[in-house]
């Protein structure tokens, strides 16, 4: 069995390619026009389309799966969406394990764009060991 330890870190980098909000819309069912229609995104004051926040959450989950090694052991995630993700943004997810107790592992996660701005805040993930 793998050894997990408090202080472990993990990282994942994802870039929002021009079709990602459309692919995610197709898979998730979230076809809100602010994600797929540039004119609507601009009219809403977003400067174009933005990625679904729940896709960013999905990337955070994927970052944790890569560390944990088993998607079925992800027990919890909590995030605040602090800034939209735009086309061509590159997001770096950095996790740090803060606690291991009673068969449960907790990690804090940051998600920053290429300008160093947080797109998620207060992100916490938990896994079953």
């Amino acid at each position, binding site marked *: 069995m793998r050894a997990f330890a408090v202080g472990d870190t993990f990282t994942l980098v994802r870039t929002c390619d021009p079709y990602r909000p459309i692919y995610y819309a197709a898979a998730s069912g979230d076809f809100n026009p602010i994600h797929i229609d540039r004119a609507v995104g601009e009219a809403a004051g977003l400067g174009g389309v933005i990625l679904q926040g*729940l896709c960013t959450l999905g990337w955070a989950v994927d970052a944790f799966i890569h560390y944990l090694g088993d998607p079925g052991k992800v027990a919890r995630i909590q995030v605040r969406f602090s800034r939209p993700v735009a086309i061509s943004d590159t997001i770096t997810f950095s996790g740090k394990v803060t606690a291991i107790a009673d068969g449960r592992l907790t990690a804090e996660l940051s998600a920053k764009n290429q300008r160093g701005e947080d797109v998620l805040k207060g992100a916490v993930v938990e896994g079953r060991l």
Partner: protein
Amino acid sequence: MALDPKFVGRAYGPFTYEVGVEKLREFAYAVGGSIPSMGFSGVGPPSDLHPFLHDKEAAAASEYGAVIGMPNFAVVFAITPFSKACTDPELGVDLLRLVHGEQEFEFLQVVRPGDVLTTRGTITDISAKKSLDFLTVTTESHNQRGEVVVRAKWTAVIRG
């Protein structure tokens, strides 16, 4: 226009969703960086996608016995009460001013092909801070065996 807190307690559902393996794969492909298309694109899974999320043989040999959903596949079947609340004509939310503010998921059971998932939700908070309105819906989803699969808290922020 501020949302009326009298709607706290309003319930939506039950809503039922039946899980299929290709949909689980497509969702994982889209999040993982590939194209959510089985027959048409032929691109296949992202190289670093966990095998339990798409590979039938690897998944069959796991403790789950079948391909499982990405935990956040919950967005597909558990979001309905939140969507219904955001589009409830009596609440009158302006969707173009709505953004997703916060999200919590608690995953208690994996999701497998053939599962029949039933979700119920309730508006648990309506509050205002400065020019922002907050609308929170809390949901619980069960599978066909009556097990709780996922509990979630969905919070929308509506700009004034």
